[in-house]
Every structure is written in C-alpha cells, then in structure tokens.
C-alpha cells in the first residue's frame, strides 16, 4: 500500500473515526484503525463491535492495499504535523512508514485479516431526512436516557417510524423526552420500533452535513452521512409502553420565561437536600413559589415566580435536577408546564414548536410528605 495525502485531509478523516476506538479492550486489534486504499480513496474504519464507523478521504494512490495501524500513535503523529504533504506506505510485514519534509516515521501495523468486518444490513428500508433536524432530535432526547444497565432498553433511544411521523423517545423511568418530526422521506412501509444505543447517536449528532439516510436492518442500523457511514447494533429489548403514561388531561398550566424559571430553580435548589434535590412548587392564581428545604443541613430557599398560572391551586414536589435538565432543552423564550395533580407526570414543552417538529418532556413528581 502506498499513497500520498495532505496532513489536513488525513487528520479530518482520523478525527471522524478515532472516538469509536475503545480505550480498553480485550481484543487488541480493536485498538487499531483499519486503512484500505483503493479506487482513489483511503477508507478508514474503527469499531468497538457495537458501533462501527467508516469514512473515506481522497488520496493519491500509488499502490492499493490494506492494513490496520495503531490508532493512538498514528493519530498523535498526524495531529502534531503541520499541513504538509505526506507519503504513507506499508511493506509486506505491515511496517507502516510516514514520510514528509519533517522526517521519516515507522511503526508496526497488522494485517487486516483479523479486523472485524462491517455488519451487513439486510435492509427493511430507509428513511431520509435533514441531518440537522436529526442531530437536534438526538440532542433533545439522549439527556433523558438511563445509565443503568439493569434496564438495558432504557439505555438507548427509541426510534419509531410511522407513516407520517418519525419519533425519538428516551426515558429513565423518572422522566421522558419525546421528539417528533414529520418531514422525512421513508421507504419503510410498516410501523417500526428500534432501540439505538446512545453512544452511536452521539457520534451521529457530531456530523455536520445536510442529509442523512437511516437504514434499518434486523440487528443493525446504519446512518449514511455523506462520506461517512455509522453502523450500530440495535438493542434487542422491549421498550416500555411510554404512550400509556403520557397524561392526556393535564388541566393546570404554568407559562413562564424559560431562563427566568430555570435560574430560579437553580438558585433554590442550592438549598435543597443535596441528594434528593427536592423542590416544592406551590401554585395558585395569585402567586407561584418555588421552595426547597434541607432538613439535615437546616437550609431553606424560596422564590416567587413571575409567571402565569391557570387552574386550581396545586403543590407539587420535583427533583430539581430533572426539571432543570428538561428546561435546558427548551429553546423558546417561554416554557409551558402542564400539571394534573401532585402525583402525576408534569408535561414540559416549548411555548411554540418548530415547524414539522414536536417536542415534549415528562417529569414525574416526588411525593411531598405533608
């Protein structure tokens, strides 16, 4: 294998795949990146077996070939070189050499025979949409996933494809985030549910491109993003029936400035119990108050909120961290929070939805003891 390439191009390709390389692995070959030079492109591939990412950059190929190279050493070298032309070659013993004006560097690569192959996607169909919209949908759902391996289904994000709707749903059992998009092209005819690991989605959200193609198979999902393809295993789990728990008739409504209410929550929760982060929301037509009390520490905090409230008087407790995380994902000037009673889920929404999108978050209350 022999090709020449600019440092900038190679660096860009490397940075796209390197984050998938596992830090620790029992399979040493996964610590390498696979290089394959053919048809005018260098294909770079990294995998941790769950998520694989492959990208291509244009290079001037003198001799096609393939091997795997130690990711850390190689990427550190390229990162620290100036933007100059590089000549990269390997010999039959998989010794890799990088030559440039600065000097010659040699390192030991390995045969790509042992490198895991990319999964085959037995496509059910694909969905094409604006990549920036997908990226936003991912950002506004992944914050709510569970980190607990005891319920694997909740560690991923649910992708739901309907006729007219494409939904992403995440929950950890205490709160839920749902993003709906209605502008997409799909060849998937039947209603489809797949759970995608969060790690894959953070990689997808990184790519700044225009259009993304989502291909769904039996066990894997593939995101085609221009020169880059990301493959991910699908979590073989049953997602809980979240629609059943979304309350339909939350008749009490709080409307407030998003930043103002978030700041108030932040200040008051300083005085909440540091573990439970419990705050109390006392709402009536006349006034809305947020308060917190840490019995152990003897601290209290209280603020009156400038906000609009419609409905009967209500006192409700929340874990302020859960509410704050939801508020941080509201992009509009004003936020709308709907309640039913002190033991049912509160609905948090932006005051107006982006065109062709719908955002909704649920937070379960904490029971007030009095």
């Amino acid at each position, binding site marked *: 294998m022999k090709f020449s390439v600019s440092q900038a191009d190679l660096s860009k390709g490397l940075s796209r795949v390197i984050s998938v390389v596992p830090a620790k692995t029992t399979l040493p070959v996964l610590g390498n990146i696979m290089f394959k030079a053919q048809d005018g492109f260098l294909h770079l591939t990294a995998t941790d077996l769950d998520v694989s990412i492959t990208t291509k950059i244009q290079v001037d190929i003198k001799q096609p070939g393939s091997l795997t190279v130690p990711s850390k050493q190689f990427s550190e070298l390229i990162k620290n070189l100036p933007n100059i032309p590089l000549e990269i070659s390997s010999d039959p013993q998989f010794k890799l050499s990088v030559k440039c004006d600065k000097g010659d560097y040699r390192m030991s690569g390995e045969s790509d025979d042992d490198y895991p192959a990319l999964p085959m996607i037995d496509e059910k169909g694909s969905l094409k949409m604006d990549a920036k919209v997908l990226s936003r949908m991912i950002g506004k759902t992944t914050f709510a996933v*569970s980190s*607990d391996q005891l*319920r694997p289904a*909740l560690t991923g994000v649910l992708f739901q494809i309907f006729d007219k709707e494409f939904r992403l749903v995440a*929950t950890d059992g*205490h709160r839920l985030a749902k993003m709906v998009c209605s502008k997409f092209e799909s060849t998937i005819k039947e209603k489809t549910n797949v759970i995608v690991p969060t790690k894959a989605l953070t990689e997808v959200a990184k790519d700044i491109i225009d259009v993304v193609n989502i291909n769904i198979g039996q066990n894997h999902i593939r995101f085609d993003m221009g020169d880059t393809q990301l493959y991910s295993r699908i979590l073989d789990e049953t997602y809980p029936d979240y629609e059943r728990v979304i309350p339909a008739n939350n008749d009490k409504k709080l409307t407030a400035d998003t930043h103002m209410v978030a700041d108030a929550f932040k200040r008051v929760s300083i005085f909440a119990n*540091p573990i439970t982060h419990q705050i109390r929301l006392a709402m009536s037509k006349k006034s809305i108050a947020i308060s917190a009390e840490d019995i152990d520490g003897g601290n209290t905090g209280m603020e009156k909120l400038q906000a609009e409230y419609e409905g009967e008087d209500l006192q409700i407790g929340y874990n302020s961290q859960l509410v704050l995380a939801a508020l941080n994902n509201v992009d509009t000037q004003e936020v709308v929070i709907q309640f039913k009673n002190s033991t049912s*889920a509160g609905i948090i929404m932006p005051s107006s939805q982006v065109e062709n999108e719908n955002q909704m978050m649920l937070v379960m209350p*904490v*029971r007030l003891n009095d």
Partner: protein
Amino acid sequence: MPTIKILSENVANKIAAGEVVERPASVVKELIENSIDAGSDEIVITVKSGGKGLIQVIDNGCGMNSDDAVLCFERHATSKISSWEDLQRVRSFGFRGEALASISSVSDVELKTKTTIEEVGTIVRMHAGNISEVTKEASLQGTTMTVKNLFYNVPARRNFLKTNNTEFRHITSVIKKFAMAYPAVEFTLFHEDEKIFQLRKADLPARLEKVIGKDIMSYTLTLDVEQFGTHVKGYLSKPSFSYKTKGEQYLFLNGRPIVNRTVNFAVFSAYGHSIPKGDKPFFVLFLESKPEDFDVNVHPAKAEVKFKDEQLLYRTMFHAVRDSMSTDSMIPSLTRPPVNESDPEKTNLSLDLHTQKESLRMPLGSGMQSSGQGSDSGTQSEDDVARFFETPEEEKRAIQTQLTQPKQAVNLSSLVWQLHNRYIISQIKSGLAIIDQHVAHERILYERALDAFEKNPIFSQQLLFPQTLEFSAEDFSILEEFLPLVERLGFVIKKFGKRTVVVEAVPADVRLGNEQKILTEMINEYKINSYNDLDPRDNLAKSFSCKSAIKSGDPLTVDEMNSLIDQLFACKFPYVCPHGRPIIIQLSLEELDKRFMRI
C-alpha cells in the same frame, strides 16, 4: 455425746482461708492491697515455684509497731475500720481483718516490719496459724511479708493448684491490675530469682502503654466524664480495632479491680453493632464513686461489687461510652497515632482527635441529663426505665440528635478521586483518607432509614412506569409484614391480588433503575437477618441500606463523591458500617515519609 461441736479456731480459720485464699495469686492480691493501704510507693514482689514455694512482698509503707505486728494475725484484727459506720465509708482495700489470719493458717508466714518512729523492726514468725517466734531486728522502714509453703497443711487444696506457670500467670495478672490502677506506685516482680519486670512510677497513659502495650493503647478512645456522682475515665478500643485487641476488660472502682456485669453490659451495648458480632471491645475504665453508693462486702475476695442503683450505673456508662465513640475520630490509621491524655474536664466530655489536635467539648445531651435526674427524683416511670433497658437503641438516637454541635471529624478537601471504581481517595490535613464507597453509602442509608422510621419519611420519586412485581407466598407475607415501614423508606407499593404488588414510587435518593432488585433483595436479606433476632426496624434498615447502596464497581463523578463524603460525615457513626466493617482508613504523611525513608 452431742454430735454438734464448736470447731476449733484453727479449723475455722482454715475453712475461711478456703474462701479468701484460693491460690497463690490470692495471697499476692491480699498482700499488695495491704501494701497500698499502708501508703507504699514501691512494691517488690518475689515469687518462687509459681507462688507455691515462696511469695514475698516488700513495701516501703508506714509499717507496724511491735504490738500491731503481733495483733494483725488475729482474726478480725484491722486498723482500717473500727465501727459499723466506718464500714459504710471504707475506702481502703482491707477492712475485714481476715486476710492475714487466713493466710497464716495455711502457710508459714514471716512478717518483718518497722515504722518510722521505732528504731528497730519487729519480726513475727507464724506456723500453722500460731505465733512461733517474735524477735527484734534492725530493718528498713516498711513491711516485708514472706509466705512459704502455701497450703502445706491443706493437701486437697494444694493438689488443686495448677502448674507453676499457670499459677505464676495468675499472679502476674493480679499485679497487672494493681499496676494499672496505681501508676504512681513502682512495681517490681521477680520469679525464680529472675527480674520479670520493673514498672517505674509514671502517669496513667505511660503506665498503660507498658502494661497493656503501646499498639493496643494507640487504638483507643479516651473517656472522661462525671455524672450523677460517678466519675468515669479510661480508655476504650476504637470499634474498628476490636478485633485487633484481645478483648481484655479492666474495671476499677476507686482503685479496686472489680467485676461488674452491669458495666460490661453497658459498654457492650454502647458499642452496638459498631463492632462485628462476637468481637469484644478492650477497655480500661476507672470509676470513682462515693463509698456509700456501692457495697464491696459481697464477695470474699471483694472482686464483685454491688451498686445501689445499677440502672443509673448502666445509663452513666452507656452514655459515657456512646458519646465518646460518636465524637472521637475513629478512623483506622495505617500508622499509630500518638495517644494524648485528655485533660479531664468535669461534667464535660473532653477528648482528643488525633487528626486535629483540638479538644471538642461536647455538652452532654440535655435529654440524658433530664432522664437521669428524673430517675433520681423518682419521677421517671417504671416503663421508661424498662423500655430503656430493653432497647437502648431508642435512647441512643434521642440522645444523639440532641448533640447539636456538629462533629468536626476530618476535613476532607475537595481533592477526591476514585480508585478502581471502588474506593474514594481524598487528601486530608494529615495525609490521605481512603473511603470504601459501598460501606460509606450503606452507613448513610442505614442512618437515613432509621431516621425515616422515627420521624422524617424519605421522599418518594414517582415512577413513570409502575413496576409490577410478583412474589412467592412466603415473600409476599414478609413484604406485607414490613409494608408500613417500607413506605416510610419512600416506596409506594399497592397490593394487587394475592401475590402481586405494583411499585408506584421509590426512595428519591436511590439510584434510578434498581427498584425491583432492591425490594426483592431486601426481602431475602430480611429473611436471613430475622434468624438473628434483630429488631425488625434495624433489620429492615440494614437490608435496605445494604441493597440500595452504591456498589463496589459503580463509577462516581467528583460531585457524587464529594456529596457522599459530606453525607458520611453528617452521620452519627461515620467510621464503621452497620455490619461493623471500617469505612475510612487513613494513611498519614508521616507513614509515607517513613516508607520513602525520609525519616
């Protein structure tokens, strides 16, 4: 001819001797007591053949004049009391006037004594309880008692004696106790012409280090408290080191080594489960009490003492021990921190923190004072006292919530990191502290659970997806049994059919997602523990804390670690987990310096 005869005095003395003089060690005890009563500050004990051959006690006390020297061997001859009223107030060891008569009836005794006033000393030789010779001889001030051929005329008793080594061990153990109680007296012991030890005059801590051992003493807490006319001071092993000590217990009342079950029970109860089951704490405790508050005259060797108000004694001891444990730094150290003698501060508890050398004065809980006074004036109901004796646990909590002053233990700075997702390491003033994350959280949750049962129920986080759980009939009945308690822990559980429940809410401070597991494992743990006769609340608190706590292997963020540390030090017993394992170990800079051979 009448079959009932009055025994001769000689026979009577021999019988009495069986009570007072059980073995050579008893002779040593009686003689040392006399020496101390005589105001000696140097006592030399010489023993041969484990005391069977020779016991000699030489002191530099006040001595006796020639008349007394002869009289002292008579039964009921004593210089220490003269009337019944005196007996009520007696502070000296001896007072019955029995010891010498008893000893001399079963051995050959030679008494050599001289007072400061007399110019020559008196020598009295006794054989079989009768004076065989009285002479005068120049001698040093003080008294020398030589006891030979013990039990020569009581072969049965002599045959019961153990080997020389065993008898000698009993003797050393007797001397050890006196040495602890009288640090200002020099004790020297010879056995078979070999000097075994010489304990020079010292202060209490120094003497204890010599007698008990430096290593054990460095793992002790200092105790010094005065209450209800009883002054208690001494040293207790830190709970986490109970296994390192041999579990020796020494109790002294006004300088007299005694055994008292109430005190032992109070101390064990105060340790509670801060020490592993079966382990015994080490303690040396000195009680000072007014003579009219107790009776020494219940046991021939005066080893047992009867207190007028044993319940009051229990309370005093329990709180004294409990308070010192909850406030002192009990962090096991890899090095041996120096033991500083605390400055006795009346009615206050003063103690040393090895980690920060400032004495914290903890006012005793007002509840404790009032409950004590209540019982004094007889206003406290019988029930209260009885309940207290059954469940000291309850009282303890009441007391401790009243210790309003926050505990300043170790100031763990914000510099923390996690080792192998298992231990939290943090820099502290004196070096570094290593915290076991699981047991630390377990301790926090345990105390929170107990608190939840008592007063502040834990908040319940409502679940988005209520969990339906099915149990076996047996487990379900256990669950029903503790359902009200579980609800105070923050679970909201609805029964649904005969063996099914729906969990609607879980404790707010339990990590997300574990609900089902925690509940199932709690039932299992509860079952296992219930065989051990635990109080159901305590059992549930233990099961809950063990199963809900973060596990070894759970990664923690810096914030989580800091919060864990803060909460840990807000606990009443931050140093040992509910099962008795240590939570924190510290490694001092000094130790590190030593390892790196800097010092």
